[in-house]
C-alpha cells in the first residue's frame, strides 16, 4: 500500500532494490503526466506510447540513471521524456514532411479509442496548432502550460536561461493565439 509520505526518491531506492510493487507505484504516480507530455510533443499516439514505454521501463532496467544529485525526480523524468521525444521527432523528419505529420496527427487522433472521452474536433485544432510550433517553443509551452512546471523548472529542464525560456513561451503563445483566433471565440462560447 502506498504511503502518503513515500517520496519519489524512496520509491527509486526500492526500485533499485528490485521491488516490483514500488516500481508499479512509481509508474502509477507519473504515467499520466509522462504520457501527456509525449502525446503533446509527438502528436501520434503510437509514437507517444513507444517513447513512454521505453522511458518508464528504463526506470526499472536502469534505475541508476537517476540520482538525487540530478535534481527533482519529476523534472528529471520530464527532461528524459522530452529528449526522447525530440530524438523521435528528428528521426521522423527525413521520412515525413511536416504537412504529412500534421495530417497524420489529426487523422490518427480521431479513431483512436483512447480519445473517446475527449472532444476530438476541438482537441485536434489545438493539437494541430501545437504541431505547427517550432520544436523549442512547443516544448516550452507543453512543459509550462500542460505539464504544470514552473517557469524556472522549464528553464532547468530545457537547460536554458529563464529569459530565453520566457521568450520561447511568449512566442509560442503569440503563435497559438494567432492560429486559434478563428476558433477562440467559438471555443470559449462552447465552454
Amino acid at each position, binding site marked *: 500500500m502506498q504511503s502518503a509520505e513515500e517520496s519519489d526518491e524512496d520509491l527509486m531506492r526500492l526500485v533499485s532494490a*528490485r521491488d*516490483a510493487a514500488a*516500481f*508499479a507505484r512509481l*509508474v*502509477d504516480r507519473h*504515467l*499520466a503526466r509522462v*504520457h*501527456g507530455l509525449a*502525446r*503533446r510533443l509527438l502528436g501520434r*499516439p*503510437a509514437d507517444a*506510447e*513507444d517513447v*513512454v*514505454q521505453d522511458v*518508464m*521501463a528504463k526506470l*526499472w*532496467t536502469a534505475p541508476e540513471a537517476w540520482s538525487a544529485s540530478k535534481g527533482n525526480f519529476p523534472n528529471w523524468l520530464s527532461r528524459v521524456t522530452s529528449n526522447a521525444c525530440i530524438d523521435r521527432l528528428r528521426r521522423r523528419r527525413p521520412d515525413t514532411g511536416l504537412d504529412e505529420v500534421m495530417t497524420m496527427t489529426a487523422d*490518427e487522433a480521431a479513431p*483512436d*479509442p*483512447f*480519445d473517446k*472521452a*475527449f*472532444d476530438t474536433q*476541438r*482537441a485536434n485544432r*489545438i*493539437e494541430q496548432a501545437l504541431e505547427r510550433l517550432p520544436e523549442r517553443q512547443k516544448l516550452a509551452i507543453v512543459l*509550462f*502550460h*500542460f505539464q504544470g512546471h*514552473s*517557469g*524556472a523548472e522549464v528553464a532547468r529542464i530545457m537547460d536554458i536561461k529563464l529569459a530565453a525560456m*520566457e*521568450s520561447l*513561451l*511568449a512566442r509560442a*503563445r*503569440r503563435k*497559438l*493565439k494567432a492560429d*486559434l483566433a478563428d*476558433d*477562440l471565440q467559438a*471555443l*470559449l462560447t*462552447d*465552454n
Partner: protein
Amino acid sequence: MSTNTNGATPQRLRDVIAAYGGDPGRWPDDERDGLLTLLRGNAEAAAARDEARALDQVLDSAAAPPPSAALRAGILSVAAPAAPAGTGTTSSAKVIPFRRPDRAGEGPAPHHAAPRRTMWPTAALLAASLLIGVWIGAAGIGGSLVSETLDFASLNSSADTYDYDIGLSEAEGLL
C-alpha cells in the same frame, strides 16, 4: 504612488502576461505581488491579462487522453518475476514491448506468442470443414444443402435472417 510594486514595471507586467498567461498563480513567485499591485491600476494590462486568460482556457479545454491500461501493463511487464531457470530470460532483461495494432508497416513487429496461439483454432476449423464436406459428399445430401446455401446467398429473399437460421438448424441436424 504609495503602493509597493517591488520594482515591477508596466513593461515587465506585459512581458510576464505574454509569457506566463493570465493566471497570476503561474507567474514567478518573487514577482507576483508587485505585478498584481501594478495590474490593479493598469487597464491596458488588465485587458491583456483577460486575453491571456482566454487563451489559457482554450488550451485547457484540450485534455490529453489518459494512458491505456495496455500501456501500463506493458511497462510493468519489465518487472515481472524472472522466468524459470533455463529459459534464458531474467526479469531485468526481458522487456515485452507494447505495440499498438495500428503500427503496421512501421518496421518489424516484436515477437509474441499470441500469433502462434491464434493459428490453432483456424487450422482446427479448416480440418473440421474438410471432414464435414467429405461426410456430406459420401452421404449424398450435398445437393439439398448446396441448394439451401444458394437460396441464402441470393439477395432476393424477403426474410434472409429467417432463412439463415433455418439453414443453420438443418446443418446442425445433419451433423
